């Protein structure tokens, strides 16, 4: 491998060819010194110039943005603060009267404003302190001749390169804003990957090796989100090769579009519901465009992230209502709050946990903070006046949790129905099966649920005791491990006996290689990143359920994930050479 190439894990498919934008998170050390009287005017001028420079840099980025929606609003608010007389006048006064250097003068004004905002009772206004702080940091960067930081200001079309990205940081990126993502950390199933897939941004993760720090902004990159290749400053020949490959992929994607309006039904008449995982309301039109027949997983954590207060019932209702209306006439499975794990909230004061994946999250948090849970249930049940809502309870490990949640749900349902919201009567209540405990007692849980949904990311992680973001052991994370297949089979049997459907959300559901196995195991609904739907529809429509069942019976007795994977790959590639050449060909 040449110096100018890195290899990582293919996180989200697609090829991107674009300049790098490196997310740098260095601590800004503000120089503080007193200036002489005769330097004052020059220092004020330096301060004003930094404001002007920041404004014009932001204006340039703003101009390049096609999206005028949410991203535009963020930018407009930044301009307001940059042009605000309070900031610049008070900072200038600090220079003139206190003889402070420009950086110190501005920093002092920021501290003053932060203290003012901090003393306010209105959480919305307290939150503005961070907006002002953000703008001031950009000006401070300009004063010190440093490049500004932050993903929300990534110029359009770039490939974002970072050591790692938090879900909160990624949540600020809108579809179409950037061409690709490369991280040193992360793996096939970390949040970066999952979010990149749902936004259809090509991503390579787990590139390791500390190369990001030394990469210059604007360096040309080619990334292949399938193979995990990253080419740094490639020659023209390589760029041409990848440009052609990118065009080929796009042609294949276009050919798949004719499957969009068709149901995923096998030749021998077994139907699979094809649903979309959705994180942001703006993704719903695209989900429909790819042929989704509903939302199989809508996560509500994002309502609670990047803020200091908690969303009240009305705000939540407004958000859920918009989801439900956008997906109509189909239904939306909305998962109750699953905070904890890697996703740390700012709106909840939680003590730090040594092992958050095994800590206070999901229904455990709901039991610990019942008022939070009840507020969310009320909002969800009221939203059903506008469409079809299904409520999904995450992180269950005991029957008592199921009973507690169902009881709360029914109490609130009768309150809400009594208040005239009759839509609540038809809301289904589902249990997410994502712990081995819940999988093993699925037969006890199913009678209390209207549907089950298998959350494979966590189920696999807990079953195999593998941290999916730990590169040292990531190779052990294997969906086709016999233990996983037996877990899933058990869950589907329990659902069938209770007369309810068992769906699946998580990465495993959207992987074309698994489609026969999941069909044969008895999964009735698959929820995935929308872009994966057309190919899966094609595969199901050209299959027989009987073939899938015979593949399953061939592999269920095999003792290792490797043997199962090899057998499944051989069978699928033999049956669908074109489709799986594309998927397996790079390996």
């Amino acid at each position, binding site marked *: 491998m040449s110096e100018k190439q890195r290899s990582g894990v293919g996180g989200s498919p697609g090829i991107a060819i674009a300049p790098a934008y490196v997310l740098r998170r260095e601590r800004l050390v503000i120089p503080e010194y007193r200036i002489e009287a005769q330097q004052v005017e020059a220092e004020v001028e330096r301060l004003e110039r930094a404001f002007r420079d920041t404004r014009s840099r932001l204006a340039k980025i703003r101009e390049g943005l096609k999206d005028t929606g949410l991203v535009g609003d963020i930018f407009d608010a930044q301009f*307001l603060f940059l042009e*605000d*007389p*309070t900031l610049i006048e008070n900072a200038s006064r600090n220079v003139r009267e206190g003889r402070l250097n420009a950086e110190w003068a501005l920093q002092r004004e920021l501290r003053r*404003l932060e203290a003012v905002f901090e003393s306010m009772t209105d959480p919305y*206004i307290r939150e503005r302190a961070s907006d*002002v702080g953000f703008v001031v940091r950009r000006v401070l960067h300009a004063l010190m001749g440093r490049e500004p930081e932050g993903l929300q200001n990534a110029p359009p079309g770039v490939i974002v390169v970072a050591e790692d990205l938090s879900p909160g940081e990624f949540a600020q990126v809108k579809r179409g804003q950037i061409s690709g993502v490369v991280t040193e950390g992360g793996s096939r199933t970390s949040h970066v990957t999952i979010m990149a897939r749902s936004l259809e941004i090509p991503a390579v993760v787990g590139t390791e090796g500390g190369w990001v720090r030394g990469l210059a902004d604007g360096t040309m990159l080619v990334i292949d989100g399938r193979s995990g290749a990253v080419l740094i400053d490639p020659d023209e020949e390589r760029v041409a090769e990848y440009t052609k490959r990118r065009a080929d992929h796009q042609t294949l994607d276009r050919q798949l579009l004719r499957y969009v309006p068709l149901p995923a039904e096998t030749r021998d008449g077994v139907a699979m519901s094809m649903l979309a995982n959705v994180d942001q309301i703006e993704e719903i039109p695209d989900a429909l465009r790819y042929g989704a027949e509903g939302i199989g997983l809508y996560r509500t954590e994002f309502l609670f992230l990047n803020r200091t207060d908690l969303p009240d019932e009305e705000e939540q209702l407004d958000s859920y209502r918009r989801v439900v209306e956008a997906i109509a006439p189909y239904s939306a499975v909305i998962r109750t709050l699953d905070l904890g794990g890697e996703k740390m909230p700012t709106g909840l004061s939680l003590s730090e946990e040594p092992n958050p994946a095994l800590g206070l999250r999901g229904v455990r948090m709901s039991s610990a903070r019942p008022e939070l849970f009840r507020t969310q249930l009320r909002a969800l049940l009221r939203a059903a006046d506008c469409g079809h809502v299904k409520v999904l309870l995450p992180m269950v490990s005991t029957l008592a949790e199921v009973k507690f949640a169902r009881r709360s749900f029914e109490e609130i349902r009768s309150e809400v129905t009594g208040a005239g919201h009759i839509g609540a009567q038809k809301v289904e209540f589902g249990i997410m099966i994502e712990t081995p405990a819940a999988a093993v007692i699925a037969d006890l849980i199913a009678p209390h649920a209207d549907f089950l949904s298998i959350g494979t990311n966590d189920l696999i992680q807990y079953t195999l005791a593998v941290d999916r973001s730990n590169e040292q052991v990531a190779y052990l994370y294997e969906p086709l491990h016999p233990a996983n297949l037996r877990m899933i089979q058990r869950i589907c049997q329990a659902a069938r006996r209770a007369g309810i459907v068992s769906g699946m959300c998580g990465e495993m559901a959207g992987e074309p290689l698994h489609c026969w196995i999941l069909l044969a195991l008895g999964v009735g609904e698959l929820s995935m990143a929308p872009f994966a739907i057309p190919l899966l529809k094609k595969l199901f429509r050209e299959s027989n359920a009987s073939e899938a069942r015979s593949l399953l019976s061939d592999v269920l007795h095999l003792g290792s994930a490797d043997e199962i994977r090899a057998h499944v790959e051989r069978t699928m590639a033999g049956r669908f050479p074109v489709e799986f050449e594309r998927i397996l060909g790079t390996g």
Partner: protein
Amino acid sequence: MNRIETEVEICNELGLHLRAAAAFAKLAERFDSEITLERGSMSANGKSVIALVTLAAAKGMRVRVVAEGDDAEAAVGALVELIANRFGEEQ
């Protein structure tokens, strides 16, 4: 110098939040007069969004629009109308 002031009640649902403050500052900017918005003992530069937001003027609170300058009368008239019209918001 001409000094005009008028007291008015904040009647939009969200109070003097970012968008309302921005609308106020933008309108104030059009006048040469010095404009301040006062609530109780606090006062804010009427042309500064940040200062206006820190007044934390919520729905139902009374504020004073003060203008000093040649176009003070027109300024106060326009700004009071903006507040009374809920800053152009729906509610």
